[in-house]
């Protein structure tokens, strides 16, 4: 009798087994959309974030082998301690000590960005890394060479297999892994963010600064993300060596226009402007108040500059300090891996 029961139980246990795979692992959550942010423009449906994909992207981001002669990695010019901008350099230094062309921006909240680079020339987050990887003054390695190198001379095929189910490395998988990592870097832990959610009370100076900011700056540095993503000539020069947006649209009216950057973490990402010409926030406000240079494309809102008293400039800077997200700087999920 017991034998029969045992047989019955075993038979039932081994019977009717599906050929289907194990249920998917619990979703990995390095990426969270803050409740007070607008909707992101990139959705990860075509590139779902997994732990292995994210870790592959992180490994690639900090790997100097993505450059010719293994000299620089993405993390070399996008350093977590500076909110993923460069270390207080106007122009970054690439392979062979070559100087770059424009100031390295902080990499955070990228899933909300429609067009990348100061001139908006790159229209999709996934293909953004191709520019620094292949640029001769940055990482200087052709994409096809990089894929072949990683495939044949490194330990990466195993990591790609873990992330994508195949040891074959393609540029699309490499770029999607980088996107899983970079796209997950969300900066929403500043005092300003907490203020927006009713969890932080501004000081008197910060409150004054916020009011001045909203009256004078938020027309362009608008909303929760502190940018309206438009391209504007903000009175830096009369003549342009760097055409900015005009080079992309081929419209001379766009010459000298650059994308309005987000001011999140602005105190951590000096120097400022597309060429990093201003080292301090004081210099930036001096520019807007007294230093606007005329040119045909000067943005109309700056026709008379933004006159500010010295006290007002101090208050605005007090407010700008509340935009620093120190949680981001210490978030180990985005740090350089230890091995």
């Amino acid at each position, binding site marked *: 009798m017991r034998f*029969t029961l045992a*047989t*019955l139980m075993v*038979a*039932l246990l*081994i*019977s*009717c*087994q*599906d*050929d289907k795979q194990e249920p998917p692992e619990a979703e990995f959550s390095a990426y969270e959309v803050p409740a007070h942010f607008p909707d992101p423009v990139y959705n990860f449906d*075509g590139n779902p974030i997994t732990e292995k994909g994210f870790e592959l992207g992180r490994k690639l981001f900090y790997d100097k082998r993505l450059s010719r002669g293994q000299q620089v990695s993405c993390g070399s010019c996008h350093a977590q301690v500076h909110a993923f901008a460069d270390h207080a350099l106007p122009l970054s230094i690439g392979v062979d000590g070559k100087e770059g062309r424009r100031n390295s921006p902080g990499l955070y909240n990228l899933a909300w960005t429609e067009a990348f*680079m100061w001139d908006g*020339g*790159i*229209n*999709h*987050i*996934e*293909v953004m890394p*191709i*520019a620094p*990887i*292949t*640029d001769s003054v940055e990482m200087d390695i*052709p*994409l*096809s060479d990089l*894929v072949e190198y990683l495939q044949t001379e490194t330990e990466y095929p195993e990591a790609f297999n873990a992330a994508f189910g195949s040891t074959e490395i*393609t*540029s*699309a998988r490499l*770029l*999607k892994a980088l*996107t899983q990592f970079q796209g997950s870097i969300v900066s929403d832990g500043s005092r300003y963010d907490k203020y927006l959610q009713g969890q932080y009370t501004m000081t008197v100076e910060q409150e004054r600064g916020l009011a001045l900011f909203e009256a004078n700056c938020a027309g362009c540095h608008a909303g929760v993300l502190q940018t309206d993503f438009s391209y504007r000539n903000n009175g830096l020069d009369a003549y342009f060596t760097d055409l900015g947006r005009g*080079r*992309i*649209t*081929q419209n001379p009216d766009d010459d000298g226009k650059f994308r309005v950057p987000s001011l999140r973490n602005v105190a951590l990402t000096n120097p400022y402007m597309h060429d990093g010409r201003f080292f301090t926030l004081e210099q930036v406000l001096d520019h807007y108040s007294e230093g606007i240079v005329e040119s045909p494309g000067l943005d109309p809102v700056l026709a008379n500059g933004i006159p500010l008293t010295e006290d007002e400039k101090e208050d605005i800077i007090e407010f700008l300090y509340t935009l620093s997200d120190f949680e981001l700087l210490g978030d180990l999920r985005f740090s350089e891996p230890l091995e």
Partner: protein
Amino acid sequence: MTIKFFKIAVMAMLLAFTTSCSDDDNNDDMNPPAENTKGSMYIKFDHVWGPAQDDFALNTDLTHPASGEELRFTKLRYYISNIELQNANGDTWKEEESYHIVDAENMSSGEVELELSDLPGGSYTGISYMIGVDSLRNVSGAQEGALDPAENMFWSWNTGYIFIKAEGESNMTSNGSFTYHLGGFSGPFKANQEKYHDFQGATLEISPADNPAVHVTVNAARFWHGGLSTEQVPMMHMPGEMAQTLATNFGGGFQFDHIHN
């Protein structure tokens, strides 16, 4: 005796019951496939030089029939995409994921062929395709196959595919070379272009047994149609009016020639 028999019978039934639970996906013997009427075909791009259709080859001295310039092509690659065939009833068959790079490196006697499969059987009267990549796929991020940016037909700084790459030497440019990277899919100057060829009374017969071919001649001299020369335009590396002109000049040199059924 009967109880033992009964036990064995129950266990046998259980065994039969439990092992028959598994899903049997391999039912081919049970359901023979429907009769197959689909077939394949080739598009053959015959590269020629000039209206006289002289032979065209890479790394070969050529004289332009209009400008007289002495030229050599070291590279000629272009995207052919969104291929469709029209049949006698006015129906259209569209190739799925229709993106191909035609590379003159792969020429055999000037010809590069693309194979298309799984066309429904029947008589076809025309073909259409795009020279270049459609605007949607220019904004779709990292892609695979012919659209892999590692194919080096992609601008990293101004996102978009290079639809046509033509490089080589010229006796009339200051540095002895010409370089055309033609792209641009938005704004007033698009370098991608749609072509349509009516088979002019001939038909392309698709069936499981045949492998017919549509021959399209491609006149590489046509970049410099309408009086252009490498002396005037030694290089082009960005979207705009001249890129569009060069691209549509070249595209104008694509002509339906004949069908082999």
